[in-house]
């Protein structure tokens, strides 16, 4: 469940595009394989990817059901988010209090959350208490109660969050940005809904939403830790075996973010926030890694990018600046964001646009490309495989993106094969467009065309 918070705008804006995670997925390290992935299929046909590891006596499971907040029916926006707040609020014959007490006694941590495109669930448990923990997880997945009292409580907490942020300029900006980019597409809606839509959601709505999404065909599972394949097979059937076979999803259109526009949120703040959106690239596009490397050189999240050097290191205009490829199920984009002192926002914007232009026109040098390849190849394990939860999360996303169980082995070669010409071509393709630009801060100075 998410309740709107006062998160910094950059973060908030990035989360509008969601699953950046999906693409930061990068490669395995050298000789020693960090993880060995097995595909496990249960007697009833439920598949999961497993990394068996007994070094620490814990087990992490993560799973996803396709269809997140984009599946909220019109007028019932917020139902996916509200539902994810209710899985530990009573299931089977246990009411909220009894369920939470047993979960605490079992020593397990259970979480559910909804993105635009998926509902995710996860549990981290101690290996010697896995039977009780997984039984509670099964109850939450298959027989959530959606009792009236918890619905009202969680709903009113979400509404409190909406009300609390009603005058926050960063929240306002976040929604204005989504609206400007996505228009009437479901991606422009607030994941948590509005006071009105939340008020209209009933227990029946939640039950029917749960039934529509939680189905076996719609499921992706990964498990990491102290459990073997044979045991897992039986647990998979217990956890998911009684779900209906097919989901009932509304088709969601693809959407191209609307670019070539300027959005201003005037507000008297000591710092202005800048956000720029360019066209993105599909994960399945053959030029994906060329774009990934190009973005890394332009403004990827290290201390070595061009934007970091020009905006922060040389001129001290900002604390953070980053560009990201953003891939959702139904849309993609390349987004640049920073926050800078208000009186020099125009200068910062001009520098960013000049760097984008230079990239589009001249591409990258051999040295930059080599360094980027090394980073993108080497950082995969460090960024994705550092904890059992991190590994489970990575394995779910790899399956969702249909990248194959051998992806970690292939990835290095695919990145290695990218040429300077590939990068130049993709830079021109993505960065020649006129971007959408949002400026949050005092009215006045903006400048920076070019």
């Amino acid at each position: 469940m998410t309740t709107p918070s006062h998160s910094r705008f950059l973060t908030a804006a990035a989360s509008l595009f969601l699953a950046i995670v999906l693409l930061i997925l990068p490669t395995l390290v050298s000789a020693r394989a960090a993880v060995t992935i097995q595909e496990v299929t249960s007697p009833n046909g439920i598949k999961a990817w497993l990394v068996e590891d007994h070094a620490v006596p814990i087990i992490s499971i993560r799973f996803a059901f396709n269809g997140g907040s984009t599946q909220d029916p019109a007028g019932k926006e917020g139902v996916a988010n509200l539902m994810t707040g209710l899985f530990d609020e009573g299931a089977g014959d246990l009411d909220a209090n009894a369920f939470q007490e047993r979960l605490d006694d079992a020593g397990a941590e259970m979480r559910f959350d909804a993105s635009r495109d998926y509902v995710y669930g996860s549990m981290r448990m101690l290996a010697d208490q896995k039977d009780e923990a997984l039984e509670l997880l099964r109850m939450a997945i298959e027989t959530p109660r959606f009792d009236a009292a918890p619905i009202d409580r969680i709903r009113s907490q979400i509404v409190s969050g909406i009300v609390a942020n009603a005058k926050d300029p960063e929240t306002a900006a976040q929604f204005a940005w989504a609206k400007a980019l996505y228009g009437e597409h479901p991606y422009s809606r607030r994941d948590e809904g509005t006071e009105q839509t939340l008020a209209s959601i009933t227990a029946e709505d939640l039950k029917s939403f749960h039934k529509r999404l939680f189905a076996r065909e719609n499921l992706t599972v990964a498990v990491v830790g102290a459990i073997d394949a044979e045991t897992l097979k039986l647990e998979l059937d217990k956890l998911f075996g009684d779900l209906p076979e097919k989901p009932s999803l509304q088709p969601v259109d693809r959407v191209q973010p609307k670019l070539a526009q300027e959005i201003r949120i005037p507000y008297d703040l000591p710092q202005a926030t800048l956000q720029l959106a360019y066209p993105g690239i599909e994960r399945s596009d053959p030029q994906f890694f060329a774009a990934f490397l190009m973005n890394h050189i332009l403004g990827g999240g290290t201390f070595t990018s061009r934007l970091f050097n020009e905006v922060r290191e040389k001129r001290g205009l900002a604390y953070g600046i980053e560009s990201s490829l953003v891939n959702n199920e139904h849309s993609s984009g390349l987004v640049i964001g920073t926050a800078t002192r208000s009186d020099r926002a125009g200068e910062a914007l001009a520098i960013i646009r000049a760097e984008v232009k230079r990239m589009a026109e001249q591409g990258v040098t051999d040295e930059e490309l080599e360094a980027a390849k090394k980073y993108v190849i080497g950082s995969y394990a460090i960024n994705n495989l550092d904890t059992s939860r991190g590994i489970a999360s990575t394995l779910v996303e790899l399956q969702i993106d249909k990248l194959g169980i051998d992806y970690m082995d292939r990835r290095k070669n695919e990145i290695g094969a990218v040429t300077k010409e590939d990068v130049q071509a993709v830079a021109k393709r993505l960065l020649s467009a006129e971007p959408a630009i949002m400026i949050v801060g005092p009215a006045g100075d903006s400048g920076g065309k070019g």
Partner: protein
Amino acid sequence: MTFEGRVGRRSRSSFMGLAAVALIAVLPAQAEAPREAAAVGNFRLDNGMEVVVIPDHRAPIVTHMVWYRVGSADEPPGKSGIAHFFEHLMFKGTKTHPAGEFDSKVAEIGGNGNAFTSYDYTAYIQTVTPEALEMVMGFESDRMRNLNLTDNVIGTERDVILEERRSRVENSPEALLSEEVDATLYQNHPYRVPVIGWMHEVEKLNRTDAVAFYDRYYAPNNAVLVVAGDVDPANVKALAEKTYGKVERGPDLPPRVRPQEPEQNTKRTVTLTDPRVSVPSFRKSWVVPSYQDAETGEAEALDLLSEILGGGTRSRIYQELVVRQGIASSAGAYFQGDALDPTTFSIFGAPRGAASLETVEKAIDTEIVKIIKDGISDTELEKAKNRFVRSMIFARDSQSGMANIYGSTLATGGTVKDIEEWPDRIRRVTAKQIQDAAAKYLNPQHSVAGYLMPETESKN
């Protein structure tokens, strides 16, 4: 709230509150679990540098950290922010390695690097493959003494930090209020000064300040090396001797004696009204002993007290205010145990629906009074202890988390033994000790309350 986000070197300033809680709640490792990983190595180099090695062979990754026993609470008066400013300057190049080279070398092998500053310590971190460990140790030991600081880089970096302050503090009413609550709570101790520094003092920090700070505090005998991951203690020892071992011992530093708090005798309130706020909220804080400062068992009791009173959804405050009475959207308590000197215990809450902020505050006060008067049950104590003890098994899943636990403990005067014995000390806490701690420290007449208010309403 520790290492997410890789944009920029970070100050923990505005995050200290909850970050510290998470850390303590997650505290230790290995005490007794039989299914153990290899033992933690702990030794000293000849020049006085302490080393901790935490083997974890699950993946070919190493977390390398150097913790300096200096933070914002050690700054000279009038130079607030110098510890954090200096942390940024550590990335500006040395006599033999120009600015950016260390970052590039780490990036080249797919590694990550960063740093952060807190009240009691400053830490530098790299996550790399085991083959690169010697390389990062070489760079990190080089910049311990050989930094090359020019006025030019200092001016630009000061601008970066002013932007950092605007992002974290000036742009956030919560952060502005929090700074001023701390400045009111601590009447004499430097914990009253924000880690990132006051704007008007940061603007004036200069090269002379930076060099003086560097020469005084950056030396092997004031540092702790923590290496966690796919390594063995013997190998790390050899590499450490080859790199850090070559750095000359610095002058002996006097004990870290900071101005201490006088007796607190008043109830104070701090109010910030801001047009960006729609729903009021509050936090009330007390000065209490930390793990380093407490009589044996008192910090453990305060830790468990914060868990039972307001640590999560099973806590008394949450169950009573959020679930049963339905008057709060959020409410809880936290204790920042990992400090060198007396630290902060806080409660917080925000109303929901038609309830007023006053109702929420009163209801939380009632929960405190109940514990002071009637104590806690054996069952809730047992459950809270179980949560703490199992958190250390979960902690072993995160290499960088383990490095943080050991680093922050050792940099605030604790030992490896303290960490290993923590679960046993938690198990020994009695219900009576928790009741006594509540009675002794949570006196509403000696507290500071901060109110964040919408523009149109007033508190009463």
